[in-house]
């Protein structure tokens, strides 16, 4: 049995066992996350760590007599032991839930739909990972740089089901070769080759395509004083800001609790540039539309349109608590599959349009620095270069920025690129993430750097 089929079977058996054992007055929502992953971690073009992880996690939400209790456990794949574990878990939840206070905003699962999406892929042969993934990186070594990063591959599965009848399954086989090339001077380029169909020739082509960027980074470093600079934010750099719509972001709950940095936007006291629009867009196909209760989000949900607030991210719990209309968000109310609208700027004219200023390829370690003004601080990273008269002059010594997003994407947003890049989600805390974002580059006329 393939790993995906095995995972689906585990999910199905667990749902059958759990839903079949529910008593009157009880309800249950079951979320499944599984993977069978191989991780090749490399440094200096050589193997640092190589291993595999197989996990199948159930996250449960149990409802009884007005009480709500979350829980979770792993599934081993052995039908008998998993059935016993599910039965024991349910018994434990009944006992624990009885001791809890009533949940004032309990929303019993109501979803009834079902869906099934499965995507096959072609991964490098596990026995030839060194030849397939690392050896092509020797081109980086020949260019005088260190080849470092992580290649992850294998199936990733998600499921959700509810005692109300919903049952959804999403399985895909994906890889992500997330890598950097470091020169002895500490300057580096970063890239990621991710997808479902591994193509060795494409991998080699992508590696070779970065070599010219390395050449530019070998020049003497330019140290710039703090100040305002004209900046092109490449799509990877723009993507670094996207989580700020999730983290203390456009969540209905965050707004109501005084924990949204976008309160002024939502209240209409401030606007972004008409050039800026953001939507949640599942047509990207990178992650499922269902949430942990089996509710299906609309395929597209505008969040910011023409610089103005359009919609908040609303879960069923927030609907009950605040009276807002749910858009089937997960309870954490973050943006999924974000898509920033493209503009009409010709990306081929980036250097010419910067004139004199900075080309920022990547940003690093961003955080809110002043909540009420939506100010964010962070660092430039990787292949950031100083441009004069439309020509690359030198790599820069990394700079810290500290800038309000109302300014950055407000009156300072000069143009939005017409070409968008899909930035794959490569996070893997606990389990490999799915998804990614679609983002353009942006020309900023005056970004504030402080250190």
């Amino acid at each position, binding site marked *: 049995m393939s790993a995906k089929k095995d995972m689906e079977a585990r999910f199905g058996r667990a749902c059958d066992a759990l839903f079949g054992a529910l008593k009157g007055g009880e309800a249950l929502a079951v979320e499944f996350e599984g993977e069978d992953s191989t991780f090749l971690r490399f440094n200096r073009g*050589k193997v640092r760590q190589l291993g595999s992880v197989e996990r199948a996690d159930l996250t449960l939400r149990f409802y009884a007599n007005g009480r709500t209790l979350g829980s979770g456990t792993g599934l081993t794949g052995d039908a008998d032991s998993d059935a016993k574990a599910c039965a024991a878990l349910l018994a434990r939840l009944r006992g624990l839930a009885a001791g809890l206070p009533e949940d004032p905003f309990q929303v019993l699962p109501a979803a009834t739909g079902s869906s099934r999406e499965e995507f096959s892929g072609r991964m490098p042969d596990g026995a030839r990972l060194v030849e397939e993934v690392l050896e092509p990186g020797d081109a980086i070594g020949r260019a005088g740089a260190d080849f470092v990063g992580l290649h992850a591959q294998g199936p990733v599965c998600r499921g959700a089901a509810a005692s109300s009848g919903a049952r959804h399954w999403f399985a895909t086989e994906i890889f992500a070769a997330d890598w950097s090339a470091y020169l002895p001077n500490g300057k580096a380029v970063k890239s990621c080759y991710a997808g479902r169909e591994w193509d060795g020739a494409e991998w080699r082509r992508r590696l070779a395509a970065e070599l010219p960027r390395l050449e530019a980074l070998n020049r003497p470093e330019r140290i710039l004083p703090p100040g305002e600079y004209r900046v092109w934010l490449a799509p990877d750099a723009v993507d670094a800001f996207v989580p700020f719509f999730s983290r203390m972001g456009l969540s209905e709950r965050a707004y109501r609790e005084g924990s949204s940095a976008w309160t002024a936007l939502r209240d209409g006291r401030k606007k972004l540039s008409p050039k800026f629009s953001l939507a949640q867009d599942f047509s990207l196909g990178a992650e499922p539309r269902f949430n942990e209760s089996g509710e299906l989000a609309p395929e597209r949900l505008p969040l910011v349109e023409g610089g103005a607030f359009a919609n908040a991210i609303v879960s069923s719990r927030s609907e009950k608590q605040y009276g807002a209309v749910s858009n089937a968000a997960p309870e954490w109310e973050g943006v999924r599959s974000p898509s920033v609208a493209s503009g009409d700027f010709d990306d081929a004219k980036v250097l010419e349009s910067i004139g004199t200023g900075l080309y920022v390829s990547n940003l690093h370690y961003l955080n809110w620095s002043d909540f009420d003004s939506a100010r964010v601080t962070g*660092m430039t990273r990787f292949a950031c270069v100083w441009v004069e008269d439309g020509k690359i002059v030198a790599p820069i010594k990394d700079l810290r920025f500290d800038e309000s997003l109302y300014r950055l994407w407000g009156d300072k947003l000069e143009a939005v690129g017409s070409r968008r890049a899909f930035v794959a989600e490569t996070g893997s805390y606990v389990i490999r993430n799915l998804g990614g974002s679609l983002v353009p580059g942006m020309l900023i006329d005056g970004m504030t750097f402080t250190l």
Partner: protein
Amino acid sequence: MSTTLKKLVGEIAPPGAEWCGLRRVRLSARAVQAKDGRFDLAYDYVDEGCMVEVLHRGQFGYAAVASLDSGALARAALKALELARVGSARPVHAFDRSVRPATVANWETKRAPGRLPGADELCAFAIDATRAMRASEKIVRSDFLFELRDEETEFVSTGGAELVQRKHIVGYNATAVAREGTLTQRRTLNGPRGRTLQGGVELLDFPAMKAEAVGAAEQAVELLSAPECPSDTRDVVLAPDQMMLQIHESVGHPLELDRILGDERNFAGSSFVKLEDIGTLRYGSDLMNVSFDPGVDGEPASYAADDIGNPARKELLIEKGILVRALGSLESQARSGKPGVANQRAQGWFRAPIDRMANLNLEPGASSLDEIIGSVEKGVWMEANRSWSIDDYRNKFQFGCEYGRLIENGKLGATVRNPNYRGVSSSFWRSLFKVGDASTFRVYGTPNCGKGEPNQLITVGHASPVCAFKDVEVFGGEA
């Protein structure tokens, strides 16, 4: 020690394995939270699994499964061997069995006898506390969260390791958000999840916790009418709950040997510290003494040995301002030839251990709090971290705190809101001019230090006295 596990590792070790290890981890976690005087959430979950590690021709391969079944573990061992074989064609370093010591130990968190309160009692307290926190109508959110974890790790190997460690973690926090007009201010107990400690029922003093939660709410309201932190250059005096973050980001991460060796460059970053700096670099002023100390009672990353079985003991990393040792595990020590510590740790059964901070502490100095404040002509007191950012070499940083007070002519003065400061690690620590004595020393921790590819979160501890730094760039918010 489970005799089953000890017997099992010998049975599953595949032919061709020069060494085989089995690490079983069982995490049992539960949490409850109340918000605004009402129940908000409760969860209770268990995660258990095993990682099999095999050494073959100098390369470790690993395979992790959520199972204790001997058949599943035998298959995992074969997979680990195959991956080790694949990797041995091009290893970054050829390891041997010396990096997996045959340590035998049985260790458990020291804690007071008595059971922890059940979910019902914790909920009742949290509901009561969050109701009391809403004394002012300016409070728009009050919450109180308990997070309790029991982590049991068994590590056995064909080399003779037999290690059992049981950690008991108690975490709690209160958050108050106050709003007036367009201004929002927030206070917690020592920053987000700073109260994450090892121990038991002795850590839960409900009357004191409620008083602190109410105090946090009062300070959130107080901050609404406080002026912004001034923007200029002056001395800063950092409370231990901000020192925790300062130590973590600008001492801990840059001293991780795997970062210095380049493993983390594609993700978390590298370090401004070079291998050749170890033993010579003046990291800070003479007052700076930093220790790796896995033996502090209550500190959340205390343990007897790390996840590869290396026995842990206290080591000074920075002595009178000079860097003498880095945070490098046996593997990193073998690769670099530099001294290190027992810090190869994993998030759980599903991740391979890497170089980590554990308990990383600034040793107490000789100054009382009054002496420190009295020595500052113009400065700002800052406490409780709320914003953090630092570059990938761990040099240029900017940190923000929840609560500040001006210091003028040796006296604590008016409260200021949005206190922030920025600097450069390599010069900042050299401006350390006062280190508090043991009376100012506090122990904190955090469960969410992120690092590694694949990514890992881990619990770390930081203890520090109050410290003062000369001529720092400080600034406030824009509202």
